[in-house]
């Protein structure tokens, strides 16, 4: 069992509220996933700049890490700390070099996500504690996806917490369990992908990133997933401009969507919506199995 929440804002006036609303929803899903939590928040994209989220850098090496990055990215680089995560913003042309530096730096630092607008935070502990640690309630943005985890397929670690980000501005959260993830992981490794964990959900994320990297649209990649992924799943997938939902054919993992003129909200259970503004008059429905649902901001 796991809990998923998502909030996609149609009304820009709600953007300062994104983090607060998402953290409320995440907390309500604690009973579905009390061992770890995580969330991706999209917003603040600036032309020509790429945000890279990393975590767990040993504090004693912070200065050397920043110096090294500044040598690569120049004076325009900025660094923002949130507890044990940091978001590094670099000119996009220096992203590759910065990523190489991060992966070779050592001292605990682990890559979490990168893209124009994604920031991704995750950790072990009760969802409320994780959200508080990173001050989710104070974050703003266009859309956010969160996950509360009750581990079934791999260890309870920060690396095993969702969301998983395996491509630019992409992230995936999963409720369920995949049965063919080892086979699929081996196939994707042969295609050149790298995986950080033994987690089944990371394979689903990598699979979608792989298809997207070959030029497929998100809905095409998700439709292909219906044939290639075996097991139980409700997925919510985030991209720079929106999010998508997919449920397996049996659809025993719950999912409910609420839509108003101001937002589209996703949750594993309705009670996560109970404090959203205007929920009393929202259109509330369950996404059908095997059907791709997709919401996007105009680019």
């Amino acid at each position, binding site marked *: 069992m796991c809990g998923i929440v998502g909030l996609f804002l149609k009304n820009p006036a709600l953007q300062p509220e994104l983090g607060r609303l998402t953290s409320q929803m995440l907390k309500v899903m604690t009973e579905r996933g009390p061992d770890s939590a995580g969330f991706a928040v999209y917003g603040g994209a600036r032309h020509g700049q790429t945000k890279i989220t990393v975590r767990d850098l040993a504090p004693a090496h912070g200065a050397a890490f920043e110096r090294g990055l500044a040598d690569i990215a120049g004076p325009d680089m900025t660094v923002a700390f949130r507890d044990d995560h940091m978001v590094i913003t670099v000119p996009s042309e220096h992203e590759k070099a910065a990523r190489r530096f991060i992966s070779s730096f050592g001292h605990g630092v682990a890559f979490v996500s990168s893209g124009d607008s994604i920031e991704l935070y995750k950790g072990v502990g009760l969802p409320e504690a994780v959200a508080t640690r990173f001050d989710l309630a104070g974050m703003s943005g266009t859309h956010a996806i969160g996950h509360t985890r009750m581990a079934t397929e791999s260890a309870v670690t920060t690396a095993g917490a969702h969301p998983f980000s395996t491509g630019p501005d992409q992230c995936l959260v999963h409720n369920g369990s995949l049965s063919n993830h080892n086979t699929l992981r081996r196939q994707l490794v042969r295609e050149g992908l790298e995986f950080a964990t033994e987690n089944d959900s990371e394979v689903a994320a990598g699979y979608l990133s792989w298809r997207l990297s070959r030029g497929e649209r998100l809905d095409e990649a998700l439709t292909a997933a219906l044939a290639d992924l075996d097991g139980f799943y409700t997925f919510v997938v985030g991209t720079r401009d929106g999010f998508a939902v997919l449920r397996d054919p049996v*659809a025993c993992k*719950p999912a409910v969507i609420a839509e108003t003129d101001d937002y589209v909200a996703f949750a594993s*259970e*309705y*009670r996560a919506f109970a*404090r959203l503004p205007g929920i009393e008059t929202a259109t509330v429905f*369950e996404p059908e199995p095997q059907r791709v649902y997709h919401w996007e901001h105009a680019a």
Partner: protein
Amino acid sequence: MTNMQEIDLAQCTLREANSQLQSEDATGAWAIRNPRGRHALAVGLTAPIDVLIDGQAGYYAGGMNQRATITIEGNAGPGVAENMMSGRTHVRGNASMAAGATGHGGLLVIDGDAGARCGISMKGIDIVVRGSVGHMSAFMAQSGTLVVCGDAGEALGDSLYEAKIFVRGEVRSLGADCEEKDMTAQDTVLLQSLLDSAGITGYPAGSFRLYGSARRLYHFHVDNAAAY
């Protein structure tokens, strides 16, 4: 309704609310305010009381009901009225998966749509859905009646025993050992009485089709001996 007794879940715990409703001495009409999608609302009731759930219900609302009349103003989560024994549950919105699962008796009315596996393993409950039902509805249904005024999803009535299924709209596919049956005069009377009980007018009984068990699956057949 006069003298409605109120329980506000913004002011008390779920357990306190259910304890009051579960009391053998409970009488009259009750309203649960601020349900906010909480699970296990008004479960295990045994007194013939009226309960209004004034909003959205989470999992298992009205489960194991005996004799009470429960109305859910909004949508209901998975397993609404599961294992109901008697009484009546009325969902004014939509119901999620496994509505009326394993129910032994009573009437479940859903004004909207029901999700997957509606009436799974039903054992005597009657379920009337004004909208449509999802895939695998009435899976292994043993007795009772499922009435669907809209459409039914894939694999309707898979591994069906002796429950009856009436569908007015399209059936995407029938499950194993489920087949269309001729409707007898008795079937028409049964269907009409359930539509009347559910307060559904405008759908003549003749506009429905009846589905039941082909009875090829649930008895041992010697030709299948090699399969074991």
